[in-house]
């Protein structure tokens, strides 16, 4: 009995201490300090490097001018390369985005509106290229389209369907940008009020007209957001592009190669221009998203009725799915097939030294050790980055979600999105620039710098969905909790957190996958260490394809597992 009583006493004491501590933390001054700290960390980690880059460009303008425009040997050759690479990047991004919309919108529609067997599987497959590291994806696509192992086998050709270059870059970019469009539109289509469509149906409009005039205008904003994400992802991608580009260099690839050549001032200038372009895109979308209308308010009853017929709808769905499988799914996973073809010998010459087993497990350069080491580094970084990002992103998401000043809220909201649209190699370069020898001189490229770089580009991936999670919690629960005597921090622990749990898990997985798969910023900040996506690029450049395929397969499997977990978690949160 006395033991029982002692236990109760201890429980009471602990609870009272906790409540008192939480009550202290809920004090206005303490909370204000917390807010300031949150914003400071955000500025330091995410905005700081970009601002510093801008500052340095202005301060060292003369030096940059010399190296970019008036190099004693090269003249303005550097600038020409720069313009060419940016032009190429923009061109590719534009083509890729158009393709994404053409294929992505019908597939989003299928996933949102139709019910069929295997819908869940298709849904997962569509999301997959987003989770798989782009270098693995790019390698797989290169194998499929660009070598004699892939599609060209179907017609017995000795060379690939297309060689490294613009065409192959476009094919690779479509594969990993397409899910951004599909996913963002699918979500909105599912939230649409079906009654509006039923109403226009009763007024005599055929389905195609309804989709065009009623439903699509409502998904416009989401479509634009998804499109811009796809565009900027294509503009800023490094990992896959390094593999598929060959001599055709896009801007992020140029950044990486100049960085390797330690041409710091010119790299800084290019990174700066890329950042400006991305920011302009982001802000213009923010400003114009509401104002842009869809073209054609005219109705073409006969033509659209024809387009709405079951036959046409079925054909359209079929073609979209076919395009998805041929251009995205099969090339993206071809590397696994390749791995089995080259398991222990070359399928062409039968040479066992060209097979995967020899290259990874038996060759004297100990690739297995490299792979294990890189995998461990990748997992370590991803884990640490996930923990740090969640800790610093959650208060920011809460801050933005609860902010009452609408203008300031909108401003912060846009700021948070910046790392989403900036090419990661440019961001990585800014971080190298600020923290490394050219800036504060605290870090040199290596493990710590990689962690900082990863935190800065995963930050937005974490804050964005968490803002949504916070917004989704009805305010009445917070109010109820405080009315019944809980302080703000107690309310957060006892009421907000349980609501947030699934959102947090989802954000953590997103952060983890992004960190695992990133290439561009990692190459710039890594020093001598290797993460597994970077190792894959190394293997590719050393032409040890079977070893690269082995690494790529490992990456695909890991991301696939994470994706399944993510889907499980988010689906459960929706059901609740």
């Amino acid at each position, binding site marked *: 009995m006395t033991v029982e009583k002692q236990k*109760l006493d201890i429980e009471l004491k602990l*609870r009272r201490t906790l409540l008192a501590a939480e009550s202290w933390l809920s004090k206005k001054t303490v909370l204000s300090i917390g807010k300031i700290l949150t914003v400071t960390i955000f500025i330091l980690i995410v905005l700081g490097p970009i601002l510093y880059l801008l500052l340095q460009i202005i301060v060292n303008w003369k030096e940059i001018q010399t190296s970019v425009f008036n190099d004693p040997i090269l003249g303005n050759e550097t600038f020409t390369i720069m313009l060419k690479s940016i032009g190429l990047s923009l061109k590719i991004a534009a083509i890729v985005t158009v393709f994404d919309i053409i294929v992505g919108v019908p597939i989003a529609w299928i996933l949102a509106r139709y019910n069929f067997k295997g819908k869940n599987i298709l849904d997962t497959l569509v999301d997959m290229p987003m989770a798989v590291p782009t270098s693995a994806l790019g390698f797989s696509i290169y194998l499929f389209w660009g070598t004699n192992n892939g599609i060209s086998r179907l017609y017995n050709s000795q060379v690939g369907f297309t060689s490294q270059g613009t065409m192959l870059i476009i094919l690779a970019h479509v594969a990993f940008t397409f899910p951004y469009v599909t996913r963002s539109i699918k979500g909105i289509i599912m939230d649409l009020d079906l009654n509006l469509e039923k109403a226009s149906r009763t007024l005599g409009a055929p389905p195609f007209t309804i989709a065009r005039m009623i439903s699509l205008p409502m998904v416009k904003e989401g479509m634009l957001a998804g499109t811009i994400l796809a565009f900027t992802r294509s503009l800023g991608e490094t990992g896959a592009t390094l593999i598929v580009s060959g001599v055709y260099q896009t801007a992020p690839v140029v950044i990486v190669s100049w960085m390797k050549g330690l041409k710091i001032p010119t790299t800084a200038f290019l990174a700066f221009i890329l950042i400006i372009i991305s920011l302009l895109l982001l802000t213009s979308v923010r400003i114009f998203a509401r104002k842009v209308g869809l073209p054609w308010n005219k109705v073409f009853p006969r033509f659209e009725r024809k387009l709405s017929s079951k036959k046409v709808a079925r054909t359209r769905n079929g073609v979209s799915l076919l395009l998805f499988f041929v251009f995205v799914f099969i090339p993206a996973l071809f590397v696994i097939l390749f791995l089995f073809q080259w398991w222990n010998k070359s399928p062409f010459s039968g040479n066992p030294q060209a097979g995967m087993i020899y290259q990874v497990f038996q060759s004297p350069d100990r690739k297995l050790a490299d792979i294990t080491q890189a995998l461990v580094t990748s997992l370590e970084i991803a884990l640490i980055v996930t923990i740090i990002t969640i800790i610093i992103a959650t208060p920011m998401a809460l801050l933005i979600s609860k902010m009452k000043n609408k203008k300031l809220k909108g401003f912060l909201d846009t700021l948070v999105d910046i790392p989403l649209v900036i090419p990661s190699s440019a961001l990585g370069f800014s971080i190298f620039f600020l923290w490394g020898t050219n800036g504060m001189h605290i870090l040199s490229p290596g493990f710590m710098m990689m962690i900082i770089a990863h935190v800065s580009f995963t930050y937005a991936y974490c804050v964005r969905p968490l803002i949504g999670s916070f917004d989704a919690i009805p305010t009445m629960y917070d109010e*109820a909790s*405080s009315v019944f005597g809980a302080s703000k921090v107690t309310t957060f622990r006892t009421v907000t957190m*349980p609501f947030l749990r699934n959102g947090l898990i989802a954000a953590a997985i997103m952060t983890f996958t992004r960190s695992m798969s990133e290439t561009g910023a990692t190459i710039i900040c890594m020093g001598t260490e290797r993460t597994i996506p970077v190792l894959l690029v190394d293997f590719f450049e050393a032409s040890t394809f079977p070893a690269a395929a082995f690494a790529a397969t490992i990456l695909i499997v890991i991301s696939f597992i994470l994706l399944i977990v993510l889907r499980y978690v988010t689906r459960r949160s929706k059901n609740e």
Partner: protein
Amino acid sequence: MSEIRFQHVTKIFHRKVEAVKDLSFIIEDGEYISLIGPSGCGKTTTLRLLAGTILPTKGRIFFDNTAMENISIQDRNIGFVFQHFAIFPHMNIWENVAYGPSVRGRSKKDIENLVEKALKSLQLSDKAELYPTSLSAPDWQKTALARVLASESRILLLDEPLGALDQKIRKEFQVFLRNLVKKERMTAIHVTHDQAEALTISDRLVVMNKGQLVQIGAPTDLLFTPRNIFTSFFVGESDFLVGVVVDDREKYSEVKVGNNIIKINNMGIERGKRVVIAIRREFFQIEKVSAEDKTGQDSKLNSLPGVVIQHQFLGLLKRIKIKLENQQIIEAKIHAKNPILFKEHDNVRVIIDPDSARSFSYPKEGIVSALEM
């Protein structure tokens, strides 16, 4: 003791929207008060000011002479029943009810006693282990009330608490709620848009419009002796006649309406002034007038002549629309069992009971804007 005092309370949102204007009134200990008024009148803002989720821009609120402006929500010890109940979905009923005392740092034993007592008085004891998702609206309602009881609040705020229940259960709950509040000796402030509910459940009602207090009083006061045009219009149903006072004797005044003169309660409006007479639709009496007796005027009967233009069944009542001589249209509600059948184009006289008519001086801004919500 839990007396609540509003002292010139004003709340301005976004620097320009005056949600509540110069509100002053006292709620006595143990009183059941309802706030009614058209939507946007400021009743919910008033409730939130009490709860402390928002603070007054000007003025002060006192609980038992303690000013509330520096006391945060969690320290006000208020019980709140939310419109959608706000039962925490991740806690079972027991944990929901225990939430108040446990975040206030009560001992386990106290908590157990409080929760069990609260659950018992709301007949929820057998549902303690269930989660909100497996219960229905009436049980959420009970849980919300049990949560208030367990946190031993003396002040109970209710924001449209019965809105989510269906009509029949709603009626039962009105009685239940009032009895519970009286038994626990709480002071209750109840916001509702349902007039009948407010009139049934409360000791006094506060009528609000455009952020201002229009009238405060017992249900019968508001129904039978409204003190202004808005209250007579908003509480129950009234028609308005406009006339000029031609004579003001001691008890009754004589008012000229159109070409007729009627007698009504003298409410202190001077001779020669324009007046608005408010009469409850249920208080009109109608009589048929034969075709010969066209004038219909009978000074003894205190009536106005008119023609029936529409009649309609409303269940237990009948609605008769009548066009008066001065072209004004009024509606009378008479019992459905009234043996006289009124048809369209019937000539009738509308008899006015001088004691149930209320008269107010004609508003400067005109009747329509005086009634504007």
